[in-house]
């Protein structure tokens, strides 16, 4: 394990921010914050002389439909010096999918945020180039949301009666 423990990491964050601890699944400390504090929190853990969570592993999102805050944006950070990882979650209210961009801290966040926008419709305020990245530009839906069906419901070539069902 890492050179600092999850408790030390959490204490350090708690000195400055009030965060909710979601848990420690498989040893990876998971905390939740809100979008007002996310960038200052990321900035703090990145630039803190002890923590040095300088490596942004991943940004992605998860959709939990029919909850009050359906979209969770998830950041994975890694400190290469201390070998400790941190997962930060931000839940966004329905119909208001805005969150400030992390491209101010990492250039590498650019495409990760574009991908998250592309699939979940999360709008990263202040992103320099928030376009779709993997899907076609004129797509209107956000396909990784749960209400988007895996296959086009209007297809006629896969109707059951073609297969004797």
């Amino acid at each position, binding site marked *: 394990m890492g050179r600092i423990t999850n408790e030390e990491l959490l204490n350090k964050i708690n000195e400055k921010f009030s965060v909710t601890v979601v*848990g420690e*699944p*498989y040893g*990876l400390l*998971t905390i939740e914050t809100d979008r007002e504090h996310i960038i200052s929190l990321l900035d703090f853990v990145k630039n803190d002389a002890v923590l040095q969570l*300088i*490596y*942004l*592993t*991943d940004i*992605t999102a*998860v*959709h939990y439909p029919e909850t009050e805050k359906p979209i969770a944006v*998830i950041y*994975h950070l890694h400190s*290469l010096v201390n*070998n400790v*990882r941190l*997962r930060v979650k931000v839940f966004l209210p329905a119909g208001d999918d805005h969150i400030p961009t992390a491209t101010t801290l*990492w*250039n*590498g966040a*650019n*495409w*990760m945020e574009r*991908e998250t926008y592309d*699939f979940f419709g999360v709008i990263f305020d202040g992103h320099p180039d928030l376009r*779709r*990245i*993997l*899907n*076609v530009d004129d797509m209107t839906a956000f*396909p*990784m949301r749960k209400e*988007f069906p*895996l296959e086009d419901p209007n297809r006629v070539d896969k109707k059951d009666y073609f297969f004797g069902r």
Partner: protein
Amino acid sequence: MQNHPVYTDNDPQTVPSTLNLGPTHPATHGVFQNVLQLDGERIISGVSTIGYIHRAFEKIAEHRPFYQITPLTDRLNYCSSPINNMGWHMTVEKLLGIETPKRVDYLRVIIMELARISDHIICNGVLGVDTGAFTGFLYMMEHREAIYEIYEEVCGSRLTTNIGRIGGFERNFNTIAFNKLRKFLKDFPPTLKEFENLFNRNRIFVDRTKGVACVTPEDALNYSWSGPLLRATGVDYDVRAMNPYSSYEDFDFEVPVGQDGDVYARFLVRNEEMWQSLRLIEQALVKLEKEPTDIFHADVPEFYLPPKEEVYNNMEALIYHFKIVMGEIDTPVTEVYHSVEGANGELGFYLVNDGGRAPYRLHFRRPSFVNYQMYAPMSRGMLLSDAIINMSSLNVIAGELDA
């Protein structure tokens, strides 16, 4: 007399020309596009467009039971599919708390390191081709074939391997596989040495690659680079060493790092990694001798599909088979992030599980996708020919880029 304009050095050429590099350009070795603004041969700016072979794997994975997701991971980095397969198995094993026997771990190390070698063979060979030296590529290709034959003995297929199962392997390694492996270990080092002799101090090659596309460690970390590219800049981050999985902590190997972060350093780092992979395989073979030879999977009947003969003849096996296929077994409601050192860098699997038969959400942290975003910014001011070899050295695999 002349009906087309002739430009001389004195002509002002104020309008930059636009070049569509891709989507299907032989030099990109994959389906992705760069629209470049050129001033003569120098790149002023570039815009990368990706997604041409996006296949919605993350969406499909939400509708598949765990054991059916392995073939999807094959198609990420198809030059080293076994690493993706193993990474996925280990993610699920971490989720379910399955402890694999040491022999399984060592067999996995062998397969993963073979995959790393085959990936680096392609990347470094193609870098040679793009700089005008075809020979080395052909020398090395012969040994990729040998690696594919070992895969064939173990799992039956070559490119999209679908190798292994949750908990171990679908069948034990046979004697032919071990013989082929030993033959490979004997034949490959002289070729690799020859390959290095052809390139490492070759004046033409060094002139073409040294000092091209230099990346500082700060930039590389800022762009979340990983794998050989990050190590070529001098940062010794290797998932195998930092967060060992599959018993990598039992092995003695070095993490090669470069100095300048240029194309030449990446080439050297990849070559050295192949030597280290050979070391790892040799150590694994020695360690295997001390392990019982009949163990090739963990004893987890509720997740490991039983062999078909047993399903037909044994009630227990039939029940487990039914339960696995129908997704009747409870899995923990939690989330897990597991990463392995893919051939291109940190390959991560973020799995959110709701206890159902399919993942609630599965996200692939694909190293090519993350590494490639620096390509357009770093190409600014570069010669077009340098940008081409820079792309080869990034080893962008379209399948991994687009998922």
